[in-house]
C-alpha cells in the first residue's frame, strides 16, 4: 500500500449528502477482475452524458459540463470535500480504488458509511471526519476561492487552510500507523499466527460444531 504522510492539494466539493458507492463506480465496471483502471469511470453516470460500458474509449465520450469533476478549476484535485454519509450502500472496494486511481488521497466529510470508511484505509486513502459547521465553512471558502488548496499532515493530524488557519482531526492510532508506514494488514496479522492457532484449539473444544 502507498504510504500517506502529508500532501497539499486542490479541493473538489461534492455538495450532496448520501453519495453511494453505486454512484462512485457503477456496477458494470465491477466486472473487472483487476484492482486498477477504475479512475476514468469514477462517478461515471454524473460525469458523462452517455451510458458507460467497460470496453468504451472514455476519452471520446461526451462530458457533462455541469458536473464538478469536469470543471477546469478542480482539475488535478487530490482532496474531495463531501457531505454526510459519504460512501453508503454497497461494500464494493472498487469505490476507493476508483477514487485513488483518479488521484484523490483525502476525503473530508461530516460522516462516512462504515464499510467505505474502512476500505479507504486499505488503499492509502485518508477519510477525515470534521464537524458539519467546519465542512460548511470549507464549502463556502472553496466556492469563493478558485484554486483553493489544503495541506493535510497525518503525522500531526492538522489540516492547514490557505489563510494559515488550522483544523485538527482524529484518526485511530492503528490506522494512522498503517497509513504512515504503508503497511499491509495481512502481514501484520500473520505475525500472530500462534494466537490464531491457540484460539482455534480452544474454540474447537468449546464449540466443536463450528469446525
Amino acid at each position: 500500500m502507498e504510504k500517506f504522510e502529508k500532501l497539499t492539494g486542490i479541493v473538489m466539493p461534492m455538495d450532496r449528502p448520501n453519495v453511494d458507492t453505486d454512484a462512485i463506480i457503477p456496477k458494470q465496471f465491477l466486472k473487472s477482475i483487476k484492482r486498477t483502471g477504475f479512475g476514468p469511470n469514477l462517478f461515471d453516470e454524473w460525469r458523462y452524458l452517455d451510458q458507460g460500458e467497460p470496453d468504451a474509449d472514455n476519452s471520446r465520450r461526451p462530458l457533462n459540463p455541469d458536473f464538478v469533476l469536469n470543471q477546469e478549476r478542480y482539475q488535478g484535485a487530490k482532496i474531495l470535500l463531501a457531505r454526510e454519509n459519504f460512501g453508503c450502500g454497497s461494500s464494493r472496494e472498487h469505490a476507493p480504488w476508483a477514487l485513488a486511481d483518479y488521484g484523490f488521497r483525502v476525503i473530508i466529510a461530516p460522516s462516512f458509511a462504515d464499510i467505505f470508511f474502512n476500505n479507504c484505509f486499505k488503499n492509502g486513502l485518508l477519510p477525515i471526519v470534521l464537524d458539519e459547521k467546519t465542512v460548511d465553512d470549507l464549502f463556502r471558502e472553496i466556492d469563493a476561492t478558485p484554486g483553493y488548496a489544503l495541506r493535510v499532515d497525518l503525522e500531526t493530524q492538522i489540516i492547514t487552510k490557505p489563510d494559515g488557519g488550522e483544523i485538527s482531526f482524529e484518526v485511530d492510532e492503528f490506522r494512522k500507523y498503517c497509513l504512515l508506514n504503508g503497511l499491509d494488514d495481512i502481514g501484520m496479522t500473520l505475525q500472530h499466527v500462534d494466537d490464531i492457532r491457540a484460539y482455534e484449539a480452544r474454540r474447537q473444544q468449546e464449540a466443536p460444531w463450528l469446525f
Partner: protein
Amino acid sequence: MAGKTLYDKLWDAHVVRDSGDGAVLIYIDRHLVHEVTSPQAFEGLRLAGRKLWRKAANLATPDHNVPTTPTERHGGVAAIADPVSRLQVQTLDQNCQEFGITEFSMNDPRQGIVHVIGPEEGATLPGMTVVCGDSHTSTHGAFGALAFGIGTSEVEHVLATQCLLQKKSKAMRIRVEGAAPAGVTAKDIVLAIIGEIGTAGGTGYAIEFAGQAIRDLSMEGRMTLCNMAIEAGARAGMVAVDQTTIDYVKGRPWAPKADLWEQAVADWRTLHSDADAVFDKEIVIEAAGIKPQVTWGTSPEMVVAVDARVPDPAHESDSVKREGMKAALAYMGLEANTPITEIQIDKAFIGSCTNSRIEDLRAAAAVAKNRRVADSVKLALVVPGSGLVKKQAEEEGLDKIFIEAGFEWREPGCSMCLAMNADRLEPGERCASTSNRNFEGRQGQGGRTHLVSPTMAAAAAIAGHFVDVRDL
C-alpha cells in the same frame, strides 16, 4: 456490572487478540464468496505466495453476474453472452478449484444468491461470525450471528488468516412493539425503521432488532429485516435466537447432527441480550402504526406509507435535505404531493437477497393468483433466490401461478437488484422492486426504483400502478 448485549456475547466469543490500539483481531467462522468482490483477493494471495488458512470455512457461488433467462443459463458458463461477465464467473470457478473451496457453480441445483444459500444450507449458524464481500451480509444476523459485509482487501485478509482486524461498534436496539397489522410484512417494518432513523441512523452501530413484531417474524422475515440493516447505515443487524431459529436450522445439510446438535442448541439458547444489558441507543416503534411502505426517492430513507403522497420539499426546513429531495424528485420524474397510488410502473421485479425466499414467493403468488399483469407493464420478473427455492416453488405450483398471470419465471441470481446482467431498467423506466436500494442508476442507468414488499410489487404489476395490498 450490567449484563451483556447479544452483540457483546458474539464479539467476546470471537476475540483472538486485543492489542489495545483500537484494532481487535476477531475470528471468522464462515466466509461466503462470490464472483464480483473476490478475484482481486485471490490474485493478492497468489502474488504474495500466501495460502488459504482454512478451506472448510469458505463457501462460494456466482450470483451477481449470472444470466437468469433459461436459454442463456442452460448453455453453461461458456454460453454467458457478456464476455466480461463470463470471465468473472470463470475466474471464480478457477479460483475455487485452485484453492480447494466448495463452490456451488452456476448450474448446480444449490446455486443462488449467497445470502439465500448460506442459511438454506445451514452454512450460517447461530453464534457464528459470518462475512462476505457484500454489504448485505447483515442478512445472516437473523440467526443470532455477527454478520457483516467487507471489502476485497478484507476478503483477502480472511482467506489468508481466517481473521479480521475490527473496531467494536456501539450497540443499538430497535424494539418494534406489538403485533404487526395484517398486510404489513418484514419489508414494510424495515423500510419504516429506515424512514424513521435515516440511512445514516445506524452508522457506527450494530443493531439488534427486538420486540413482539420481530419475534413474530419467520426466519425469512428476519432475514429481510437484517438484510436492510445496512440501508440504515449499520454494518450488522441481528435478532436473538429463539425456537423459530432453531427449528429453521435443524436438519440442514451443514448443520450439526446428533449429540453435536444438542450441544450446539444448548449454546445457542444463550444468544440473546441479558435483561439488564445496556445499549448505547434504544429506539421503540409501535408496530400498529406501520403500513405497507413505498419509497419515492433515491435513498431508502425516502419512504412513505402507500396511502400517503409524495412529500413536498417546500416543507423541509433543512437546506441540504431540501436540495436532496428536489434532486430525487427530478431524477424520479415525480411531482410533489402526488398520491403514491397514482404512480404508474413500467416493470416489476420480485427477487434479490432481500425478498426471494420461498415465503416471499408464496406471498407474491397469492396476490398474482387468478389475476393478470397489466398491459401497461412491460416486464414483470420473478427471480428465485436459489435453485432450491426455485425447485420448492415449482413443487408448490407457484411458477405456474406467476406464468399464468403474465410474470416471467427465471433462474436464480441477483438479477435486476443491481443489473449487472441483462436484467435492467432502461432510462426513465419505473419499477416496483422488492430489492434493497433505490439509488440513482442502481437498476440501470436512468432507471427509477420504488422499493416495496413482494405482495406490494405483485399488486402493482397487476394494477399497473401502486395499490394498497390491504385493499385487495
